[in-house]
């Protein structure tokens, strides 16, 4: 027998791969967010664009400077920046946005060991930090939809220097979000506006319809587990429906609850983050139901107008426990036990 060909290479089985990749998952998520992103820029103009660009750049820069090796290729820094930007008020001072991005990547991601090590979604960590550190700016950063001049000038608050008192946004143009209006008892926002997104709100959270479409795309290309958003939205629908039934004047209806705040963005794009959500299918159901219940609880019975952010964080804190409760049992030892 002669020698083997020079080129015969060794590799470990399996020699086939299904083609799924981390990069594919993140890029699909970015694509799914594009409709809502474009709509956000149309709705809030330069302010939204600047917020998104600063959020993305700060995340990428933080990752580039602090990751032990370049991990930008997997797209997760881009996605985190995009999600952070979409979840912030559009007229938030840009330096705060940059700080949020840095905190998201350094505290939310790097401190936990980077990709795969996280406990909470880094974008949520960035946002919750901003909420805690700059509550006034976060509460005043809203813009009215389709404000005139949005395409040509930035609101004064956006360009505020660090730690200086910001100027007013545009005169008389800042708007109150639907959830805040409802809380103050100023009446309900029309459902059509709420679902289409022609209301004041965070940069990319307003259009429930576009986020829903993006989410369906994400599920269709199998880049997200459909069980989590399904369970989460069902849980919100059932609980808020029950409350509405109990006292229609105090509690908003099902469609208003589903279409407002950061619920759609959170349910489809933040809750489905693979690392901070449970690994088993049963766990995904529990996770979604728990977060949905927390959303309704916080929205209706706490001092906060919006609860999605905290509900997601609490849900992620439950993840290790859910994983333990739903640990798969090997086939062969079933029945014997």
């Amino acid at each position: 027998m002669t020698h083997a060909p020079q080129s015969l290479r060794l590799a470990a089985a399996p020699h086939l791969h299904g083609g799924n990749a981390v990069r594919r998952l993140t890029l699909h998520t970015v694509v799914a967010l594009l409709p809502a992103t474009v709509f956000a820029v149309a709705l809030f103009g330069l302010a939204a664009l600047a917020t998104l660009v600063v959020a993305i750049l700060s995340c990428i820069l933080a990752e580039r400077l602090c990751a032990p090796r370049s991990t930008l290729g997997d797209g997760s820094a881009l996605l985190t920046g995009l999600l952070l930007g979409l979840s912030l008020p559009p007229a938030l001072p840009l330096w705060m946005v940059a700080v949020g991005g840095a905190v998201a990547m350094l505290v939310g991601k790097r401190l936990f060991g980077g990709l795969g090590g996280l406990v909470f979604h880094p974008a949520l960590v960035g946002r919750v930090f901003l909420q805690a550190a700059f509550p006034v700016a976060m509460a005043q950063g809203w813009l009215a939809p389709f404000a005139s001049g949005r395409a040509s000038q930035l609101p004064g608050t956006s360009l505020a220097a660090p730690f200086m008192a910001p100027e007013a946004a545009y005169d008389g143009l800042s708007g109150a979000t639907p959830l805040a209006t409802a809380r103050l008892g100023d009446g309900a926002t029309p459902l059509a506006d709420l679902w289409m997104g022609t209301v004041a709100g965070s940069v990319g959270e307003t259009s429930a319809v576009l986020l829903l479409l993006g989410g369906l795309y994400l599920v269709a290309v199998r880049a997200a587990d459909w069980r989590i958003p399904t369970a989460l939205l069902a849980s919100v629908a059932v609980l808020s429906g029950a409350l509405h039934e109990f006292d229609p004047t105090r509690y908003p209806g099902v469609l208003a609850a589903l279409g407002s705040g950061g619920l759609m963005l959170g349910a489809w794009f933040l809750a489905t983050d693979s690392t901070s959500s449970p690994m088993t299918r049963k766990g995904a159901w529990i996770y979604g139901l728990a977060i949905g219940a927390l959303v309704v609880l916080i929205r209706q019975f706490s001092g906060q107008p919006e609860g999605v952010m905290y509900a997601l964080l609490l849900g992620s804190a439950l993840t290790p426990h859910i994983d333990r409760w739903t640990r798969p049992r090997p086939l062969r030892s079933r029945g014997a036990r």
Partner: protein
Amino acid sequence: MFGPRPAFSGGIALPRREPRPGELAIRQMPFAPSLYLPLRQHAGSPAVAVVREGDEVVRGQLLADADVEKSVPLHAPATGRVLSIIEQPDPAGGTVAVIHLAPFPGDTQEYPGGPGCDPETASAASLLAGIRAAGIVGLGGEARPTHARLRLPPGQRVGMLVLNGIESEPVFSRVPAILREHAVDVLMGVRCLLKASGAGRAVLAVEQHDADTAQSLLAAAPAGLPLALRVLPARYPQGAEELLLRVISRAPRRGSGGPVEDGALCFDLATVAELGQLLASGRCMTDQLVTLAGGALLDPGNYRIPLGTPLRFALEHAGLRPDPARVLLGGPMRGQALASLDRSITKDTTGFVALDRNEAGMPEPPMPCIRCGECVAVCPVQLHPAQLGLLARKEELKAMHEEYHLDHCIECGCCAYVCPSRIPLLQLFRAAKAQWRRRQPAVAREDAA
């Protein structure tokens, strides 16, 4: 997506290439100028040569034999001269004696066989003896001597035989070839096995794409033969014995005992056909049905290859292109990449795949686990591959086995196939299992065997 539900959770739908008609036909491969016959071609103790260097042997003549319980005899695959018997490195580890046989020219290769055996009149004991004497071992991978599997501990009975007509990996096409060309042998094999095992009935399990062929085989069965057909939706890896028995019985299995306790015994379809053919003709096992596949072959397909044929000769006969990227012993999901083509066709080989550059692809570096849970969803035996992978990196062998039941892993490779981070889970698990086995005291190993 809306087809019939598979009877086990997990598994994957592997892409399956429809074989061209010419590939299905079983082609006889000529004798290589030299045949190399290792004396360990089955699980259990190696055989001992009963011929000496310089002997002339006749096709079908006994070359080596060993202890009756755990071994099977080896016969000359060709009429020729024994050039040497030397210890050589065994691909499975250690060394093994190898008989080097030079066949005489083709016109001297007549193989008349002996008196056939009739399952109607023969006793179960004589059938068992005949199966052993023919040198038959299980063809579906493990290569346990078939007669040893049929010999049950006292007090146990076999209720049902399962004929495994599901390809171990979709790239192989032995099942349709056997159903088409060896229908008579399969039926004969079933009758022999029913008699030898005392089982009341037999079930032939095939996947959807072989349903029609299997149907026509059943139509040819003699009246009164208790053989039923079970068609399953195609899903990898349900050809694994463990899963197939579960699917067929549809009942959760109790304990972790072997298949015999359940009253069902599983045989590879190729083994059944081989057994039927050999017992009917009074011959012994001298060649092996092997699928040669892959883009680096000009003429892939099913070949009947004399035992001991050098792998290089076999691949070149099937049109091996000059520059294969990777040659696999077994299929692409679980097969082992060979460092050299210096091995021969043995009784435990079912197929080889020669991958070209395109198919082999570029290896991608693994990334950290992102806990997506895909591996958990596809694991057909419901283990936790992600957690096992993390433990493997930390070499927590004890936790892997005692807490996460790695010993239940059937090494199908589904977890690594779906992993978006390209973590080599199957490789990690195989290494961890081997390391764990080495750590166990020898006594425990004996018990497990």
